[in-house]
């Protein structure tokens, strides 16, 4: 007998020896509200259909009714774990429309903020990944260390998660010398903790057995499916927008693009762990070189860009984040805004490279692509 199920525009056939399993939307390891409909034969996954939209707030439409300045705090709320990078992508787009040149100090502050945010985001990945594979200790460590970075960002921007720090033409506020000293101290401390992480995960036979060879994403497939960020680099493709299309002042820093040829969940974990160190390197260089000066260019109170369209992209902790803006040249509100978010592409690729794995491994693989549902649904 063949049963037919219809939902959300899909039709799925289930034979006698198969079952249809619903994972989520409220499941601790779906990182937000994502529903996965899984067709299984015994323990083997045969088909996965992600159902999204549970966190949809209509950000793009809201943005059409907000002035250019008012949109900045709204971009925070898309990928709430890397708000700084969202701000960054958006302000870069508007500045390109306006043809603004922003002061040096502001550029450096932006890079420091974005990289600190990347560290915080990757630490959270380590925490939740640990939790999903059944290691609650890792969860505690990750959150504890992220806290130190959040304290720094709090001093910078005033908030712990939704920073709203960057402005069109510069940044919100300046930080003093003591901040940089504190920042360096925190980075030193974090370096110590990272050694603990390495000892805790990478020398751990249990961890390796649980993650190696799970969810193999081949480089050709990854490129075809539009996967970006650490997930792509873990498939051995050397692609980082900070290097291939440097924005802001990233071309001045010396850092490596981390790649790994493992293509599996383990590789995705290692790439992120190593990227924390690269980000720390960038922050250290930025603190060393930061000049004195203004933190904001001269911008009119009401921003009315000329008619035109623009697409700018940054490397967010999850991949390529692009912002497309069309301005009709008449109003102080964008005519249309579109965000190209990395998590969406990564989740779309997920069903393709996980056919035939065990259900318990599916959770590991799902955790390893590190998606944020606020980002996908917008």
């Amino acid at each position: 007998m063949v049963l037919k199920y219809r939902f959300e525009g899909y039709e799925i056939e289930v034979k006698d020896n198969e079952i249809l399993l619903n994972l989520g939307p409220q499941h601790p390891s779906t990182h937000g509200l994502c529903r996965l409909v899984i067709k299984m034969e015994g323990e083997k996954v045969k088909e996965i259909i992600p159902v999204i939209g549970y966190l949809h707030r209509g950000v793009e439409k809201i943005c059409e009714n907000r002035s250019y300045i008012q949109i900045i705090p709204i971009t925070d709320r898309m990928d709430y774990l890397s708000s700084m990078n969202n701000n960054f992508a958006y302000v870069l787009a508007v500045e390109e429309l306006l043809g603004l040149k922003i002061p040096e100090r502001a550029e450096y502050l932006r890079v420091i903020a974005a990289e600190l945010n990347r560290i915080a985001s990757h630490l959270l990945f380590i925490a939740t990944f640990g939790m999903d594979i059944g290691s609650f200790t890792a969860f505690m460590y990750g959150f504890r260390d992220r806290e130190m970075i959040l304290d720094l960002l709090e001093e910078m921007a005033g908030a712990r998660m939704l920073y709203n720090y960057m402005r069109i033409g510069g940044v919100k506020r300046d930080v003093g010398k003591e901040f940089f000293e504190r920042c360096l101290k925190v980075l030193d401390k974090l370096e110590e903790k990272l050694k603990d992480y390495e000892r805790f995960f990478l020398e751990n036979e249990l961890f390796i057995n649980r993650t190696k060879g799970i969810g193999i994403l081949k480089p050709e497939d990854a490129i075809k499916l539009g996967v970006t960020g650490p997930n792509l680099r873990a498939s051995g493709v050397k692609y980082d927008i900070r290097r291939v299309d440097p924005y802001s002042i990233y071309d001045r820093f010396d850092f490596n693009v981390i790649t790994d040829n493992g293509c599996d969940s383990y590789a995705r974990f290692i790439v992120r762990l190593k990227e924390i160190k690269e980000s720390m390197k960038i922050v250290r260089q930025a603190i060393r070189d930061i000049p004195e000066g203004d933190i904001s260019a001269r911008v009119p109170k009401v921003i009315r860009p000329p008619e035109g369209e623009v697409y700018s992209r940054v490397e967010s902790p999850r991949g390529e984040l692009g912002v497309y803006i069309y301005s009709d040249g008449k109003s102080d509100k964008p005519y249309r805004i579109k965000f190209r978010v990395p998590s969406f592409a990564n989740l779309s690729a997920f069903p393709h490279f996980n056919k035939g794995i065990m259900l318990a491994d599916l959770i590991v693989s799902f955790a390893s692509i590190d998606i944020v549902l606020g980002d996908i649904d917008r």
Partner: protein
Amino acid sequence: MKLKEFMKKVSHVLPLFVTLKHLFMKPITIQYPDERLKLSKGTIGLHYLDTNKCIGCGTCARICPNKAIVLEDAGVKEIKTARGVIRRPIKHPSIYIGRCMFCGLCVESCPTKALEFTTFYEIASYERKSLYFSYKELAKRRE
């Protein structure tokens, strides 16, 4: 070679040393209502309104992305101008804190710096009514 094999066999115990080390560390969690975390200087909390400085221009209400600010009549006020003291009706901002996302645009845009942020953060409440902060309540100093 022998050592390597042996290490591989016992490698799942090695992480235990990391956790053991943590056993002797100071706890980092706190008992919240009794103890409080020290906040950074620039933390954004509830707004504070200096009614002497506010000129009722309404810039804050216009810039708020969530339209959380309304201007409320605040009676007649004496204002010093170049031509002496004049009396005119004035409005002050009141905030629906439940709708506020603490973006800080109102504080930044205020031309007279009448609005500021305090570090007071315990605003949660049982009813929606008490999330409306009229200008009189905003003018109280809270730390």
